[in-house]
């Protein structure tokens, strides 16, 4: 306790008071006497004076701006909140007296009228309370709707969740509307929170200082009234949801802009606000103005469908409405099948799969691009870098090169290009080749000089992606990328011993992993209608058949690629024509690979909401995804959006980190989704909660000794998560019989590829055709129960190139629960769908 009596004052305290002139006459005399006789007292006083002088010498600080406008705006809002909500909180504790019958003067604002002593609050108390209660009910209902949708439903029907459509509408709304709504909602919620914290002392919330909103909650006030608690909760929930909606809108905006669509005034370009907030995004647009064209008219209708995919369709309200409906359905779509496709190399398979998607009118959204645009939108990338992509794409278009939305290239270009420095990723392979050449020359020189050549391979000049490459020269990263890289440091995968470090230095985009080109895996999450999925699968099977029909080269056992059977001149001409057609299109449009399939490629209908999001993972990551059943989690659009915003991407995309997997597991466990019935199966109409709970169960199970895998025949009733996992673990889902297994084995032997360890067991179109058929039959069953206008999600794992050490490592890291008798799958060489002229068969 600081209370002291005057006679308790010690001499030093007297000195302090004396210094401040806060002593009585008697005390003053006492102090002066002491100072005269005691040198120490004089020294102490001198110290106190010095201290005081030092403190007073500190520079005077000023705000630097006039706060009155801002304060008054906030004050007005606070008054409104207070007047609105105070009666609600007070009504529970106080008897309510009817407000006096005095009218508010016409044209009089709340602030002008003033709240001080006028007593008008009581007059408006009940009407405002009614409005507030209505708003609260609406808010609570909105929040509860998705939860209600978690009740068991027929997942095959995939009925739209309540609330999703509303979100979709928000998504489909102009981005600035959503953003503004978010801001407003945030403000309102902050006000609610403020009020709840303040014993009726409502404080307005400025849009600039969200943090202050929370801080205000701690203002030393008495306990919150219960009514205010509920208000606060509702406000916070609303804030969160609105933020999510805004994020969804951003995602959609990115998606649309990724296709180069110019929505003109319809979507992004209507307000200067949006343009100012996302300058980089506006800059990064192509294809006729993009989102930044605030004043530009809507783009003219595309005259060349193949070249400019539906650029003007998005302007149609009907199209928007259709898209909104489809988006709401897409949000419901769920993962039903995991498919692996093998290709000659990553590029070829990517091109090929792109083509299939486009053929099915499924537009391709690049995951990393979404993430990247999100970063740009959040101004996380340094100024100037946003122009790098423009320049890059322009340069490519100028040269007629294929414009690829690949993660590595774009992210690299943005993260590595310095402001004002032109970056062209096309130069990088050459630089890498030069680096390798230099290393080779150095080794040769060492040999010539009679010295032991260095076993250390040359470090690549360029590290791809926005993550730090292992053992590579560290690129100068953009701040955002640097931040991500810092987080990634302990998750970097080591290159396998079989792979040269130079190759392992390739770092693929957002994965943060170091993978070699031969071990890259492209994961594509397709959200499409049943017809589209069927078409996709059918086309893949057709091409697989075509591939199998190719003659096998006796010496190598590989399929002879098509280009060996066709006159090269014709193929080159077609390739050239394809590139020309692409040149006129938007940068991110799917591009037909060179070759005869070009003419079949058509632009995706922008009105279609079917889309594919893809990203790259290493084998290890993929194995970890499978192992931890993170696939269940990436099945949700929400998660992808979270990933795109950089929140959850690391946990999923890197996948192999136990810590992050645990984090995600905890999130799932703590969510209400985890409470959903766990024993329901997809087939039996399980709710989404079951699927989402699967990772929790799996992780819990993983902490225990791995049980012996059950034989395929006994694995009949499986949980949803196991069903999702099954094809990847190769545990014989669906009772793959001996004949099928034998058929698979024969095919595998026939194609002459080196065997893939059975532990991997990933079913592919090529290494396990019988299993593929089984899976397709399963999918067909589900598709039959799905309305044609509903959407389904299928995760495709595009594996480029031959299995390598990385795959072996993945096998080690992954599950090893393949039941006895599972055929050793094999990996073929280049399938027919690969662009032959560009993708020679990979070495086994």
């Amino acid at each position, binding site marked *: 306790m600081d*209370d002291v009596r005057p006679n308790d004052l010690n001499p030093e305290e007297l000195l302090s008071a004396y210094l*401040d002139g806060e002593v009585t006459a008697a005390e003053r005399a006492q102090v002066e006497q002491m100072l005269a006789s005691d040198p120490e007292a004089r020294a102490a006083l001198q*110290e106190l004076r010095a201290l005081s002088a030092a403190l007073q*010498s500190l520079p005077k600080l000023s*705000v630097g701006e006039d706060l009155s406008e801002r304060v*008054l705006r906030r*004050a007005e809002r606070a008054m409104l909140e207070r007047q609105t909500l105070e009666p609600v909180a007070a009504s529970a504790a106080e008897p309510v007296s009817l407000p006096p019958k005095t009218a508010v003067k016409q044209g009089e604002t709340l*602030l002008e009228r*003033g709240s001080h002593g006028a007593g008008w609050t009581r007059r408006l108390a009940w009407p405002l309370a009614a409005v507030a209660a209505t708003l609260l009910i609406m808010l609570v209902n909105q929040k509860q709707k998705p939860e209600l949708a978690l009740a068991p439903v027929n997942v095959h029907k995939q009925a739209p969740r309540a609330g999703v459509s509303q979100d979709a509408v928000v998504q489909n709304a102009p981005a600035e509307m959503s953003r503004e709504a978010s801001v407003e909602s945030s403000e309102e919620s902050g006000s609610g929170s403020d009020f709840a914290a303040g014993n009726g002392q409502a404080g307005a919330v400025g849009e600039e200082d969200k943090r202050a909103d929370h*801080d205000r909650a701690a203002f030393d006030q008495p306990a919150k009234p219960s009514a205010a608690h509920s208000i606060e909760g509702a406000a916070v929930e609303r804030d969160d949801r609105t933020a999510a909606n805004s994020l969804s809108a951003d995602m959609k905006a990115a998606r649309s802009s990724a296709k180069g669509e110019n929505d003109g005034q319809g979507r992004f370009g209507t307000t200067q606000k949006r343009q100012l907030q996302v300058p980089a995004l506006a800059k990064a647009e192509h294809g006729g103005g993009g989102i930044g064209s605030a004043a530009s008219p809507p783009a003219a209708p595309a005259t060349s469908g193949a070249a400019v995919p539906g650029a003007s369709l998005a302007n149609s309200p009907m199209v928007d409405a259709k898209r909104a409906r489809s988006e709401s359905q897409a949000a419901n779509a769920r993962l039903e099948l995991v498919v692996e496709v093998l290709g000659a190399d990553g590029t070829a398979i990517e091109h090929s799969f792109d083509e299939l998607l486009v053929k099915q009118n499924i537009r391709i959204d690049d995951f990393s691009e979404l993430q990247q645009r999100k970063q740009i939108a959040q101004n996380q990338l340094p100024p100037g870098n946003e122009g790098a992509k423009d320049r890059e794409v322009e340069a490519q278009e100028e040269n007629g090169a294929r414009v690829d939305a690949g993660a590595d290239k774009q992210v690299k270009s943005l993260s590595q290009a310095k402001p004002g420095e032109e970056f062209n990723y096309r130069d990088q392979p050459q630089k890498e080749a030069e680096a390798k050449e230099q290393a080779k020359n150095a080794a040769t020189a060492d040999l010539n000089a009679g010295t032991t050549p260095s076993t250390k391979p040359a470090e690549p000049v360029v590290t791809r992606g926005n993550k730090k490459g292992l053992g590579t020269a560290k690129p100068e990263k953009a701040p955002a990328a640097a931040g991500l890289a810092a987080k990634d440091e302990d998750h970097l995968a080591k290159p396998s011993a079989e792979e040269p470090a130079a190759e392992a230095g390739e770092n693929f985009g957002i994965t943060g992993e170091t993978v070699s080109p031969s071990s890259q895996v492209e994961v594509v999450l397709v959200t499409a209608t049943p017809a589209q999925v069927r078409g996709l699968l059918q086309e893949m099977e057709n091409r697989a058949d075509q591939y199998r029909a190719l003659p096998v080269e006796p010496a190598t056992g590989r399929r002879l690629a098509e280009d060996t059977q066709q006159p090269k001149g014709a193929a080159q001409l077609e390739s050239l024509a394809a590139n020309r057609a692409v040149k006129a299109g938007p940068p991110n449009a799917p591009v037909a690979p060179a070759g005869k399939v070009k003419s079949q490629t058509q632009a995706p209908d922008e009105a279609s909401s079917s889309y594919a999001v893809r990203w790259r993972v290493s084998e290890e990551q993929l194995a970890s995804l499978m192992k931890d059943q993170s696939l269940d989690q990436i099945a949700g659009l929400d998660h992808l959006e979270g990933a795109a915003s950089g929140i959850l991407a690391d946990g999923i995309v890197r996948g192999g980190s136990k810590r992050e997997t645990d984090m995600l597991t905890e999130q799932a466990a703590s969510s209400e989704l985890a409470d959903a019935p766990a024993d329901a199966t997809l087939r039996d109409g399980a709710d989404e909660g079951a699927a989402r709970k699967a990772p929790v169960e799996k992780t819990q199970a993983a902490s225990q000794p791995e049980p012996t895998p059950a034989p395929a025949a006994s694995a009949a009733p499986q949980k949803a998560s196991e069903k999702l996992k099954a094809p990847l673990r190769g545990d014989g889902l669906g009772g793959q019989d001996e004949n099928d297994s034998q058929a698979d084995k024969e095919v595998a032997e026939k194609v002459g590829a080196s065997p893939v360890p059975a532990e991997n067991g990933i079913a592919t179109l090529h290494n396990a055709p019988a299993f593929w058929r089984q899976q397709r039959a399963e999918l067909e069953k589900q598709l039959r129960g799905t309305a044609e206008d509903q959407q389904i999600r299928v995760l495709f794992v595009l594996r480029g190139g031959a299995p390598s050490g990385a795959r072996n490592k993945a096998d080690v890291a992954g599950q090893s629960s393949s039941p006895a008798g599972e055929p050793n799958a094999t990996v073929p060489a280049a399938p027919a769908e690969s662009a032959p002229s560009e993708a020679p068969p990979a070495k086994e």
Partner: protein
Amino acid sequence: MKSDPELIAETLAGNQAAFGQLVKKYQDRLYHTAVHLLGSPEDALDVVQETFVQAFVKLDSFRGSSAFYTWLYRIAINQSISLRRRKRPMSSVDQTREITGEEPVDTAEGPDRRLVLQERAEQLHAALAALSEEHRAILVLREMEGCDYEEIAEILDLPVGTVRSRLHRARVQLKDLLKTVMQEETG
């Protein structure tokens, strides 16, 4: 220039511009105090704004028994202390440099002297940040705002005797923290 009571009366009568004048009048003083209390310009700005908002909202409860700025300070101090309690104490050279800014302490001094003063200011800020909230608040009010004991007592809702003793203890603590600085100053 109208007096505070006049502006308050006009505000209560519905003239918000009058309150705007009060804001302009006290925003810098309040900000200066809040920065030293909180150690963060951003937090200080938040607190200042919120203080004025609270003052506006509760203006009808202001009885005029004390000076308006005393009442304002009371709100600000309470908010600052609350905010700071909710945050971990933090102080760094960068932060104090940020607080002190580029503003020269004494333009008449040479660059070396200014550097010394700048360094001293940083030390002072760091020492202030290391004090307890009560001691820091009372020191800021006394040394930087020049409040007398009565005003401090009113703002902090303390007896005058407590103000005196607490202020003394705050000085002793600060002196210990700034021992070297003080030695240079007195030597």
